[in-house]
C-alpha cells in the first residue's frame, strides 16, 4: 500500500541529512511511497513570488500523510484537527542544548507532534521527565537514519564516488573535516595562525576539508599548490558525503560531533562561536572543549591519535531499531 510522508524542516540550521538518508531507507523498504519535502523556507513570505509554506501545508493537512519533523515546531503551522501521525526526530540539534528544561519548555518543544523519536537515551530520559501530562508517544532505541545508511555499502560507495568526482585529490587520503557554524561571530579567528606551518606539519596522507570562509582567508599566504592539503567547500555543499568519508572531525556543531561520537571516529569540539552547544559543553564538560586558538596543536594531536575524543552521554546515539519499521 502506498504511504505518503511529509518531511519538514523549518530552520536553516538543520542539516537535513537524515531526510536524505530516510528517503533512501524508505525506497529500499518499499517502493510504494510518496514524499513531500519542505525545508528552509520558513522565512518565505513574499506573495505572488515564491511558495508560501503555509498555503501548501494547509493543503497537505487534508491528505493522508505522516509528518516527520527535524527541529521544526508545528504548533504555529498545523491545526490540532490533523489526524495523521506527526513524528519529531529528536536529533541532537543545537537548540536542545539551549533549552532551559522544564515542563513548559518541553511542552513547547513537542507541541503539535504525536510521536517523539529519540536516538539517544539521554534525551529520551529528558523528555520522559518533563512531558508529564502530554499525550505523546515516545519511541526509544531508534537508530538515526544517517547511521543506518552507513550500513549500506552501496550507498556509502555512491557517496564516495560523488565526492571523489568533485575532489579527485581525496583519493587515498585521510580526511580531516573542520566544520564550523556561526562563522560571522568570529571573523578573524584564524588570521594570526601560521597556516603554512600547520599544513606543512600535516602528514602527507592527510588533507583538511573545511567550510570555514575565514580559515580559507587565512590561506592567502599560500600558493594554490597547497590545494592537495587543504580544500574549502562552500557552505554545506557535499556535507553528507564528507561526513561519511571523513576520518577526523573538528567542529562546534552538535549534530556532526554526535555522528562522529556515535561512529567511534576521532573528533574534537571546538570553541568558536559560543553557540548553545559550546556553552552547554563548556559548562557541563569543561575539559571536553578546545579553544579555536589551539587549533594547530589540536590538529597535530588528533592526526597522531594522541588526542582522546570526549565521551559525552548527551551526544551518544546508541539506538539500534530501524526507524522505518517504527514509522511504516
Amino acid at each position, binding site marked *: 500500500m502506498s504511504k505518503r510522508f511529509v518531511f519538514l524542516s523549518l530552520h536553516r540550521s538543520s542539516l537535513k541529512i537524515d531526510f536524505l538518508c530516510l528517503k533512501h531507507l524508505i525506497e529500499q523498504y518499499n517502493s510504494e511511497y510518496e514524499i513531500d519535502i519542505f525545508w528552509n523556507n520558513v522565512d518565505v513570505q513574499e506573495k505572488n513570488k515564491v511558495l508560501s509554506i503555509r498555503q501548501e501545508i494547509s493543503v497537505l493537512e487534508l491528505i493522508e500523510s505522516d509528518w516527520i519533523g527535524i527541529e521544526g515546531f508545528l504548533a504555529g503551522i498545523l491545526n490540532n484537527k490533523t489526524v495523521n501521525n506527526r513524528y519529531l526526530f529528536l536529533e541532537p540539534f543545537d537548540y536542545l542544548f539551549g533549552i532551559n528544561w522544564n515542563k513548559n519548555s518541553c511542552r513547547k518543544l513537542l507541541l503539535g507532534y504525536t510521536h517523539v523519536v529519540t536516538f539517544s537515551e539521554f534525551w529520551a530520559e529528558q523528555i520522559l521527565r518533563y512531558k508529564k501530562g502530554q499525550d505523546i508517544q515516545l519511541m526509544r532505541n531508534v537508530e538515526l537514519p544517517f547511521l543506518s545508511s552507513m550500513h549500506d555499502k552501496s550507498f556509502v560507495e555512491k557517496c564516495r564516488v560523488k565526492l571523489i568526482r568533485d575532489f579527485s585529490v581525496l583519493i587515498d587520503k585521510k580526511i580531516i573535516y573542520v566544520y564550523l557554524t556561526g562563522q560571522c561571530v568570529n571573523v578573524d579567528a584564524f588570521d594570526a595562525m601560521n597556516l603554512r606551518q600547520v599544513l606543512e606539519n600535516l602528514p602527507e596522507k592527510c588533507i583538511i576539508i573545511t567550510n570555514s570562509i575565514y580559515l580559507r582567508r587565512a590561506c592567502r599566504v*599560500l600558493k594554490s599548490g597547497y590545494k592537495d592539503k587543504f580544500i574549502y567547500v562552500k557552505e554545506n555543499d557535499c556535507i553528507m558525503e564528507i561526513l561519511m568519508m571523513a576520518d577526523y572531525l573538528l567542529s562546534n556543531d552538535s549534530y556532526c560531533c554526535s555522528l562522529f561520537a556515535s561512529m567511534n571516529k576521532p573528533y574534537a569540539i571546538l570553541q568558536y562561536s559560543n553557540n548553545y552547544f559550546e556553552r552547554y559543553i563548556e559548562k557541563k564538560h569543561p575539559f571536553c572543549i578546545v579553544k579555536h586558538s589551539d587549533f594547530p596543536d589540536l590538529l597535530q594531536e588528533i592526526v597522531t591519535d594522541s588526542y582522546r575524543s570526549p565521551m559525552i552521554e548527551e551526544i551518544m546515539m546508541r539506538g539500534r531499531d530501524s526507524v522505518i519499521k517504527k514509522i511504516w
Partner: protein
Amino acid sequence: MVKISVIVPVYNAAEFLTEALDSVLSQTLRDIEIIVVNDGSTDNSNDILDVYKRKDLRLSVLQQDNKGPSEARNKGLLQAQGEYVFFFDSDDILDKKALASLYECAVYSHADLVIGKYDIYNGSSYRSVNNLDRLVKKETIDRFDKDILWTFSLWNKLFKRSVIEENRLSFEPVSYSEDGIFTMKFVFYANKITGCNKIINHYRRMPCAIYSSITSSVSEWKIRDYLTAHKLIYLFLKEEILNEYPQYIDFNSLLCNEDKMCQYVNEFLKKEINVLVNQFYRKFWTIDEKMVECLAVVISNLLKKINLDTYYQLAADMQDLHLDNLYSNYVEALADCRVSVALYGTSERADAFLKTLRSLASQTLVGMNIYIPLNMYTQVINAQLMHKNMVCVDCDSLALFYQKSLAQTKAQGILFTNDCFSYESGALRRMYLNMKNSYAEVCDNFIYLNIGNKAAACSWHSKAFCVNHRNERYIKRNLLLANKLIDTCFLKKVNLSLRGSNTELAEEITKKAIYIIEDSVNVIFEEGHSDADFIQYLTSINANYFQGMKHNHNVCSLADCRLERDMVEVYSKLMPSNKKKKYFLNKRDIIEMINKLPVQDKVLFYSTHADGRMGENLAALYKLVEGKKIVATHPLPHSQQWKLCMYYHFATSKIILLDDNADYLRLFPLKKEQRVIQMWHRCGIFEKFGIYNITSTEKLERASHIQYNLVPVSSESVKHVYAGSFGIDIEKVSALGVPATDKYFKSDYIDKIIATILKKYPQFASKYIVLYVPESEFVQSEMKFDFTDLSLKLPPNMLLIIASEKSSKALQDKFENIIEINDFSVEDLMFVSNLLVTDYSSIIFEYALLGKPMVFFCSDREIYSHNFYLDNWKDLPGEVFDNYDKFINYLMNIDRHVLTEKYYNFIDKYMNACDGHSAERIAEMINSYMRG
C-alpha cells in the same frame, strides 16, 4: 579652454547614434567639445553625423578608414583641447548631468581621474550595477585599490588631459581590453583619484536577456588580444609595484612580504581568470578545439600563480568546472558530462526547433550534451548549428526518443524538452548547480514568457506553484517536463518508465522526487505571449491537472472562494493596537467587543478625501448599489468618537467599499462573510503606490491591505502591479474596469459639460483647443517654456488652455491665445480640447478614453523610470519631446496631431477593461452578494 572634450569613436552605430549624441549635446555642462571619429562606418552613421555637425557647433567630425576604436580614440585625443577628456561609446546614453557631476568632483578634489557609476540600459529599463558603490564613495582612491581592477571601462571616468599628454598616453592597437591598459596606466600616473557617487553612463546591453551570448562570438584573435592586453597590464603593474617598494629587488619576495600587494596581484589574476573562463572558455563548443586547449593551458598556468584563498573563491563561483583539470578537448568534456538535454522536434516545425537548439547551443555549462532526433540532422547542419556535443538519436516518437536519450546518457541530470521552449544562456548551469548543491532530484523552474525578446515571468505559472486547492487532491508540481532538470540516477533507480506521454512521466516523478523550485532560471515558453497561451499549450499536451485548475480569470461573484481571506495570513500580518489603557478600557478590548457584533446587511462607503466628498469611483457605485448604505467621508485625522463609529461600521458592514488606505483594517480581523472592495482612486498604473511607495513602514502597509477581497482594475496587464503593491493574491485583483471612467463613454454627459463650458467661454467653439496640463512645478525655469514666444508662434485658430492640477500659477502675463483656467476641473476641460499636452500627469489614462491625441513635453525622461510604473516612456500614447523647438514645430503642424499605433497599444495595455459599464458590473456583484 573648454572644460571637457568628449571623444566618441563611431563604427556602424546608426541605430543608436542619434540617442547617444542627443544625450551628449543635452548635457547641463555646456562648455564642452564633442569630437566624433567616424571609423570608416559603412552604414548611414556619417549622414547622421553631418546633421549633428550642422546642428551644434560644439561637435566636430573626424574621418578615418576602419582602424578600430583604439586608433579612433587616439585621433580624437590629438584633436582634444579640453581640460578633461571623457570617452563615450556611440551606443550608450549619458546621464543629463553626467559631465557636470564628474567635472564638479574633479575640480572640488583637484583630481586627475574621477570614477563614477553606471547602470545597464536594455532599451526599456535601467538596472543598477552595485559593484562600484564602495569605490565611488571615496574622496581619495588609493591607486592600489582592488576595486579599480574591476572597472577598466572608460565611459564612467573623467581623465585630465594634461596627464595624458605629459605621459604620452595613448591606446594600444589591440581590439580587446585596450581600455584596461589605458585606464591602469592612467591610474598610476594620476596624482589624485576620486569617486563620484552619481550614475554617469547608461551602458546599453540589448534586450537579449534570453539570447545574449548568441551574438557575442569568440575568435582566436579576440582571445589573443585579450591575453596580450593583460600581459601588458601585468608587466606595467609589476614595474609600478616594484617602484612603490624599492627595498625589494625580487618581485616574488615582495609579494611574500607585502600582504596588500599580494592581495592586489591576486585580485588582478582573479579577474583575468574570470574573464577567460566566463567570456571565452564557457563558449567551449563554439570555439576551435586547438583554442580550447590553448585556453585550458593559459587558465591552468594562471591558477598556479594565485594563492589558495583566491583559488577557492574562484572555485566556489565555478563549481560546474574542475579548475584543477579543465577539459582541453571535446572528448574529455563529453566523457564528463554534467547535464544531457533531450530536445525533440519535427521537420514541420524546423524553425522553432532550431530556435530552441540555438538557445541550448549557447549555454554556459560546458559539460553538457544535446540529443536531437536523427531526422533533424540536415536542418541542423544547414543552420550551421551542429556542434560536437550534439548526438543524433534515431526514433520516431517522442516517448521513444526520450527513452533512448535516457538510456544513452551518463550525465548527472537530464532535461526533456521540445521546440516550444528556449533557455536563457545561463539557465542550464544554474539548474545544475541548484540541483547539485541541494541534493534535489528534480530542479523545477518557473516558466517565463518571451515578450519582445525579454523574459517576463508567467504569472499564472508562478501562481500554479503556490495554488491552494482546499478540496482537491493536492498535486505537488505541474506536469511539464521542459522546465525540470531530473537526476538520472533517480530516474533509473526508481525505475520510472517513459510511457505514452511526457505528462505521465512527470506525474510519476512528482510522487517520489525531492524537489527544489527556482524562479531565477529563465525557461522561456516561445509559443505565445500570454498566460492564456501557456495554459492552452498545457491543455493541448494533455496535462489534466491544469484542466482541473482554475485559471486566473476575473471573478464574477463576491461569493467566489478565491476571494476568501486566508485567516492564517491575516492573523500573522495584522497589527492590533497596544494594550495601553487610555480610558476605562484599552483600545484593543473596545475593538474586540465591537467585533463580536453580528454582520448587518449594509454597504459602507468609506472615503477620506480632504474636501469631505466621496471619491468618484464610490460616487459612481453609490447610485447603483441597493439596500442600506452608510457613507463615511470624514477627512483625516479622525476624532475619537468618529473612530469608535468607524470600528462599529467596519466590524458590522457586509460590504466595505474603499478608495484609499483604511487604517482600521489593520487593527482587527474581519469576519468570513464580510467583503472589502478596494476601488483605488486612480486608474491605470502611474505613480508607485502601496508597498512600493511606503509612507509608514512596510509592515503597517501590508497590514492595511491584507484584508482586501477584491480590487477592480482597468486592465489585465496592470493586475500584477496592484497585487504586488497591496501584497495580495493576484486572484483578488480583477480587470472589471474603473467606475469613474464610465462617464467618458456617455455622450449626453459629455455634451452637457461642453455646453456649460462654452456658455462661459464661447470663443472656444471656433478654436482648436490645446489643453496643457503641466505636473512639474518648475514650468518656467526648468522647462524653458517661453509663453511669449509660444503665443507668437501658435497658429491663428489655436488656443492653449493651461489647466494645472497644482495650484501654482503658470502664466505671469496675459496673452490672447493662451489662457489659464481654474474655474473648471481638468476632467471637464478635457471634453472641449482637441489635443492634450502634458509632462507626466496621470490624466493620460482618462484622456486616452476620449480618442483624442496627446503629446508629451518632458524635461526629464528619466522620471518615468524612477518614480512611475510606466517605466518605458516609449510606451506613452503620443510623441515625446524634450526639445522646445521640436515641440513647437509639432504643435504648429496640426496634421501631425493624429492617433498613432502607440496610442492604441496604450489603451489595450492599460485601459482595456474600461468600457463604460464598470460601475454596473461591480454594483451587480455587490447587489447579488447582498441578496445572498
